[in-house]
């Protein structure tokens, strides 16, 4: 997967580089550093050519063939083909060569075309003109000629040609704005900073005079990480060393905005840019259907081998009598006679293998691939999943997992941005126990009365007035919000400011909400200019604070800080973060009042943040400065060191207050979750939020109900008791309940059963997951899983991104191996999206990273309902029918061939002509099933949406279980027996003969072995196609066209194939065989009879199963006879409906075990009113 990395490595080693170094040194502008500096090992770098194409003109054929034959199926068919070429086999190599050739060619053409497009794109990219500085002059060159160390100039709205270290910009403050839409999809402007010592160079000459080296790490794909340092050599001897971070790095693919031009030095070029390194595809996920398909394939491979073995053995037993082996009329050639017995037996075995190899058809792979590829368009085309507000529709990033959508058992959902809108609104703040609520905002306008604050508590005293202002200042200063000062109106939000409109942009919507909220409370953040933050205070005076340091936010620390120097020279550290990360670091302040307020807010579903500060004396600040500088310059382990440094700095804080921001639920989130639960899917919420907030959201979206008994497995509880005790206690509660549940269910009193919800936090989870010294960690895990299984809903709060993935993995690998789905919208969900069987990204506010890494992306959480219940369901039934049907029709196809061996002396004589062998899977029976697998709707879309419980009918791979598979196989065997022996009895006693009335007068002719095969084949094609027709529940004109069309095609083809002496063939065995057969009455009668017999058992099974043990789906399908008959008895109807209501509200822990007869009633009758198509 890391092929380009490997390529780089190989390149490096091939270039004779002995030692692979961790960092690279770049001479800016190719100027040698002054003598005396450390000697660096010169490294070779690739040029700036982007090669996303896999092939060149020359290596396309060998490389593409190699790639294709690496697939095990293709390789298998290649082997069969080669065997056919080498030894004397019953079928011509064409029969397997042609389909294989077809598949390989089509794939090669497709890949070739894609590669050609890539070449074109590469060329366009590589030939893009780039400005660079040479000898103080601006030179225009093609992008691909760019080298590491070149100084590049980029103008506004241009895309950076390679990864650059930002040296200087036309803006005075040495910043530039960048959008990375094509990199990670985030369209917000990001600010990057030029290197301090070079930001003064504004002209070409100046920049050319720069004498510096850059040391940085070797390229790595993480877009957001970069460490390096720059040495600037002035006239003085000592070079100035500056740290470089990702804020100094301009990535290829990003676009320069709001800045006239910038200068930068190229450090990573071509395939080493971070964008190129991110081209690598994700690991392949395989669906459950594909896994069962592979198991079935192995079964069929075994059948194939055993068939071949049986026939080989029987052949030699049968041949042991010489008159059978070599009767006088059928002598062997001399060469054949002299061949070694074992060699002969082995070739015979291979020949049988070849004869029966069609049981595993090439075309199945093609059809499955086509079905998946074409079928996935239905998702992108779905209008219901198109979001008007954002103008986004669903995206399909992989079509391999379509059917997995119908198999989901666990949904892991992120909360923020997924369940909730991530559209933050500042609700209130609490300063030292006093609560402030900003004015209600109406349509973006503050209501006109001007006081600005509603005091809920009694009015504060003087000292608290100071605190209050400090709090607002802290909120105004402690953030990374940018002000978008141009008059572009496409910005995400207009602040409801007083006349002057400024738009705040931030990667975190909370921050924007806070800054806006504070604005409504009187303090407006104006801008950041030359490291000074400007604030408009309540008295309309401008306050300026010098921004000294930003201790940026990360999800582990869960807080951020700024260090600012006020106009009066006081240095403050403001810290803002989650309560759990602030409270332990607070030494002063009204902690208890604020904590209670925070908890109250959290229960209401608000997002809370605590704000604290500390005053720094200059000496302290010096120390901090040094510490930070030291860590920032470090090349290795910078992250870790930084974290340690932050830890050291952010302590002994004084608590100021807390804020509360409301995050509204997404529309229909509750409805969706309810539907998912009814569908038997367990929904888990994984969030980084605090427990109370998360729990409130869960209540709001009906994940927890009032009746739900909450079980807590949190740090607090574990502190009280040991983990061991807590776990056992919980499991006892839950298991007792489930025990009684079973009893209740049995006695029909299940309505009052208890339904449990579990809350667990990250710390407790890591305790459970942590392997114990004695290695018995699995014990806790099992216990934990047991508890989880019995809970209808689980909420995991305080989760770090990796813990989310851990949870998913834990469930994924538990002993039932359930299918998991993870849905999230932010970068913190990527790990879980990648981990789950199906990863769904919500195209949301927090950027597109989740959407990019997901398998499917949807605009809103509510679309998950249709995605799973409708599309997933359809894809699943379609592909499972496709797989089963393919095996079935090939059993029908090959088993007569096997039976025929018993009647032809095990001589590998084929029953069918080569053309029919080849075309059976390619054309006679391929299109109907493909169209079925694209169009089938066994139940209408609306019914599926209305009745989520139908999803349970297909849970646990229901249509591909062994029982179903064996049914299909036996159906195939039965049909094959019918075809073969039907034809056999027709032929045995003479006389499928043709009385030839049509052809000539009163002749009466005998049919040979090809007519026999033709009869079997005709019956087979008709039966197999009609079988599919019986399975089709949704007959559009396309289905009609394809099903009847392919039968017609078969007939026309046969007429044509037998109607002409084909000059290029060296045999004419099919000449007039089909036509002669058609002119024989008994043949017609036999076809009708055998087709009927072949279809009868399946029809019978269908009808009986539907009548006696109907599934919920079948009940919905059929017009409900009970309801219709009940018409005249209104009381009964009412009773039933009341009953069904009960069912609807039952919690889903009842499980699918509640039986089809039970709950399905409620589904069947109300849904199948008069509008139901019959």
């Amino acid at each position, binding site marked *: 997967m890391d092929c380009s990395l490997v390529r780089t490595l190989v390149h490096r080693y091939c270039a004779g580089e002995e030692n692979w170094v961790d960092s690279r040194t770049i001479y800016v502008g190719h100027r040698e550093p002054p003598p005396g500096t450390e000697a660096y090992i010169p490294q070779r770098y690739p040029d700036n050519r982007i090669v996303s194409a896999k092939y060149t003109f020359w290596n396309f054929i060998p490389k593409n063939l190699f790639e294709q034959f690496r697939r095990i199926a293709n390789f298998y068919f290649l082997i069969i083909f080669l065997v056919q070429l080498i030894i004397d086999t019953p079928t011509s190599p064409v029969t397997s060569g042609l389909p294989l050739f077809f598949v390989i060619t089509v794939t090669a053409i497709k890949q070739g075309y894609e590669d050609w497009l890539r070449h074109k794109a590469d060329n366009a990219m590589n030939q893009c003109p780039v400005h660079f500085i040479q000898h103080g002059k601006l030179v225009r060159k093609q992008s691909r000629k760019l080298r590491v160390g070149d100084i590049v100039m980029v103008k506004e709205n241009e895309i950076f040609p390679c990864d650059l270290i930002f040296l200087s910009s036309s803006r005075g403050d040495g910043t530039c704005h960048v959008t990375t839409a094509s990199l990670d999809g985030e369209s917000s402007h990001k600010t990057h900073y030029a290197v301090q010592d070079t930001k003064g160079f504004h002209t070409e000459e100046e920049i050319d005079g720069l004498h510096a080296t850059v040391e940085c790490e070797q390229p790595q794909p993480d877009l957001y990480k970069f460490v390096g340092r720059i040495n600037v050599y002035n006239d003085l001897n000592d070079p100035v060393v500056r740290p470089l971070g990702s804020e100094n790095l301009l990535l290829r693919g990003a676009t320069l905005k709001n800045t006239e031009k910038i200068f930068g030095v190229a450090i990573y070029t071509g395939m080493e840019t971070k964008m190129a390194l991110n081209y690598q595809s994700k690991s392949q996920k395989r669906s459950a259907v594909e896994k069962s398909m592979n198991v079935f394939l192995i079964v069929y491979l075994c059948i194939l081998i055993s068939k071949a073995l049986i026939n080989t053995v029987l052949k030699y037993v049968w041949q042991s009598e010489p008159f059978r082996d070599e009767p006088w009329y059928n002598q062997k050639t001399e060469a054949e006679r002299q061949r070694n017995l074992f060699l002969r037996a082995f070739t015979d075995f291979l020949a049988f293998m070849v004869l029966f190899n069609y049981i595993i058809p090439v075309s199945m792979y*093609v059809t499955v691939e086509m079905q998946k590829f074409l079928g996935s*368009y239905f998702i992108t085309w*779905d*209008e219901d999943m198109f979001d008007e507000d954002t103008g986004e529709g669903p995206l399909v990033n992989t079509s391999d997992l379509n059917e997995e959508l119908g198999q989901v058992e666990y949904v892991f959902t992120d909360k923020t941005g997924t369940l909730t809108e991530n559209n933050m609104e500042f609700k209130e703040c609490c300063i030292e126990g006093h609560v402030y609520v900003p004015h209600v905002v109406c349509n973006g306008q503050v209501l006109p009365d001007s006081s600005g604050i509603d005091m809920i508590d009694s009015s504060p005293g003087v000292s608290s007035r100071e605190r209050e202002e400090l709090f607002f200042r802290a909120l105004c200063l402690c953030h990374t919000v940018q002000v978008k000062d141009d008059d572009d109106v496409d910005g995400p939000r207009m602040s409801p400011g007083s006349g002057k409109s400024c738009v705040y942009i931030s990667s975190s919507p909370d921050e924007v909400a806070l800054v806006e909220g504070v604005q409504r409370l009187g303090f407006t953040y104006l801008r950041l200019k030359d490291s000074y933050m400007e604030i408009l205070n309540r008295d309309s005076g401008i306050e300026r604070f010098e921004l000294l340091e930003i201790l940026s936010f990360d999800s582990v620390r869960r807080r951020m800080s700024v260090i600012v120097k006020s106009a009066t020279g006081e240095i403050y550290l403001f810290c803002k973060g989650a309560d759990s990360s602030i409270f332990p670091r607070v030494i002063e302040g009204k902690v208890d009042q604020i904590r209670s307020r925070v908890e109250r807010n959290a229960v209401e579903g608000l997002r809370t943040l605590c704000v604290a500060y500390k005053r720094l004396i200059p000496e302290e600040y010096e120390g901090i400065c040094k510490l930070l500088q030291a860590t920032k310059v470090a090349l290795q382990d910078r992250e870790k060191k930084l974290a340690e440094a932050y830890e050291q700095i952010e302590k002994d804080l004084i608590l100021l207050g807390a804020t509360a921001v409301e995050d509204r639920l997404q529309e229909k989130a509750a409805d969706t979750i309810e539907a998912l639960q009814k569908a038997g899917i367990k929904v888990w919420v994984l969030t980084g939020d605090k427990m109370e907030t998360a729990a409130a959201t869960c209540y709001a979206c009906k994940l927890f109900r009032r009746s739900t008994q909450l079980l807590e497995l949190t740090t607090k509880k574990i502190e009280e008791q040991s983990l061991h005790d807590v776990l056992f206690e919980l499991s006892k509660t839950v298991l007792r309940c489930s025990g009684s549940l079973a009893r209740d269910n049995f006695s029909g009193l299940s309505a009052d059963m208890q339904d449990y919800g579990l809350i667990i936090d990250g710390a407790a989870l890591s305790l459970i997951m942590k392997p114990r010294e004695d290695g018995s960690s699995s014990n806790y895990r099992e216990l934990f899983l047991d508890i989880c299984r019995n809970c209808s809903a689980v909420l995991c709060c305080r989760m770090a991104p990796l813990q989310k993935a851990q949870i998913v993995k834990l469930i994924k690998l538990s002993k039932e191996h359930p299918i998991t789905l993870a849905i999230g919208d932010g970068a913190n969900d990527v790990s879980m999206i990648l981990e789950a069987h199906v990863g769904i990204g919500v195209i949301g506010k927090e950027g597109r990273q989740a959407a990019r890494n997901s398998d499917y992306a949807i605009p809103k959480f509510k679309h998950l309902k249709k995605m799973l219940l409708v599309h997933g369901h359809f894809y699943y039934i379609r592909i499972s029918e496709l797989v089963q049907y393919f095996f079935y029709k090939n059993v029908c196809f090959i088993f007569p061939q096997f039976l025929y061996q018993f*009647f032809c002396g095990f001589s590998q004589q084929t029953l069918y002509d080569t053309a029919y062998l080849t075309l059976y899977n390619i054309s006679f029976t391929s299109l109907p099933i493909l169209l079925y697998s694209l169009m089938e709707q066994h139940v209408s879309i609306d019914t599926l949406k209305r009745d989520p419980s139908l999803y349970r009918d297909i849970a646990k791979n229901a249509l591909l279980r062994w029982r179903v598979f064996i049914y299909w196989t036996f159906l195939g065997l039965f049909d094959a027996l019918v075809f073969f022996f039907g034809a056999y009895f027709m032929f045995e006693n003479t006389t499928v003969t043709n009385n030839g009335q049509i052809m000539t007068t009163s002749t009466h002719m005998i049919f040979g*072995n090809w007519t026999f095969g033709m009869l079997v084949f005709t019956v087979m094609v008709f039966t197999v196609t009609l079988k599919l027709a019986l399975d089709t529940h949704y007959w559009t004109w396309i289905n009609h066209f394809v099903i009847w069309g392919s039968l017609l095609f078969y007939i026309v083809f046969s007429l044509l194939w037998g109607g002409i002496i084909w000059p290029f063939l060296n045999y004419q065995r099919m000449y007039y065989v089909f036509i002669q057969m058609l002119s024989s009455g008994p043949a017609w009668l036999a076809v009708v009879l055998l087709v009927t017999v072949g279809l009868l058992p399946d029809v019978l099974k269908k009808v009986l199963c539907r009548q006696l043990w109907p599934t919920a789906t079948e009940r919905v399908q059929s017009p409900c006879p009970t309801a219709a008959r009940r018409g005249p008895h209104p009381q009964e109807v009412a009773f039933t409906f009341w009953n069904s209501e009960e069912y609807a509200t039952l919690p889903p822990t009842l499980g699918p075990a509640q039986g089809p007869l039970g709950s399905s009633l409620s589904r069947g009758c109300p849904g199948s009113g008069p509008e139901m198509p019959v």
Partner: protein
Amino acid sequence: MAMNYNSKDEVDGGPPCAPGGTAKSRRPDNTAFKQQRLPAWQPILTAGTVLPTFFIIGLIFIPIGIGIFVTSNNIREIEIDYTGTEPSSPCNKCLSPDVTPCFCTINFTLEKSFEGNVFMYYGLSNFYQNHRRYVKSRDDSQLNGDSSALLNPSKECEPYRRNEDKPIAPCGAIANSMFNDTLELFLIGNDSSPTPITLKKKGIAWWTDKNVKFRNPPGGETLEERFKGTTKPVNWLNPVYMLDSDPDNNGFINEDFIVWMRTAALPTFRKLYRLIERKSDLHPTLPAGRYYLNITYNYPVHSFDGRKRMILSTISWMGGKNPFLGIAYIAIGSISFLLGVVLLVINHKYRNSSNTADITI
């Protein structure tokens, strides 16, 4: 064949020189096809819809079956085994290969007269005409009169491709093992000497085979000249151009030969040998009475435990005697009818029980 969208996306991420592509609406089309809402017929196989079908199948199949069965039973057929393995058999003497040519005669009696056209077959058993080595051992180009193939037959014909450095015409195992017994039929009249029954040699092969697929090689005045440079198949007594005196039935287009060349599907088979045409409507073609069969016994089957038969049969609109089809039709018709009844019962019972089940839940 991994068709995912990765490559496409990369390409789409493409045009780097044109900043800020036009944001076109991604809104999908609201067509019935794309929204999966094409108008459709949605049939459901329920007991209600299937029940009538079962009855109809029963009602149609049973009469057809009876019709076929009766027709088939009305067909007269007699089969005479003349292998001669039993010591009592007149052909027993012909089993030893020394007696050539060997003639034997078998008497038989027709209990009832055969009306209409009568077909005469020879039947072989345990003869694997469908063996792969055998089936492919022919050259269709040669048989189609291709002169190059005539002199250079296909390799598939080995080991019956060349004999004494001359190409064999017709080559291959099938041709080489052509059935060469001669059968003659005589009616032993009440009084005088036996009357021979006229056996028609022509019209026993497929018309297309005789006129299109099989052709004598071109050129030459006589047939012998056309086959110049070839030799006869090893087991044949005469070369191919001496199969029959009638020029229209000689060489590759000899109908006995063509019939033999159509390889049988099963190891027990019969092939059409001669036609006995109805002479007039008044007299039966073969009146009841005693007959004898004169056999020129050339074809050895004893070595592979085979049997040889001569079959006389009349035909009907549906071909020869075949009780299977009629019985099968009757059986399937009855089963289907029976199933219909069973389903009806189940349907009825189930409705009642389902009512109660609904209420107790």
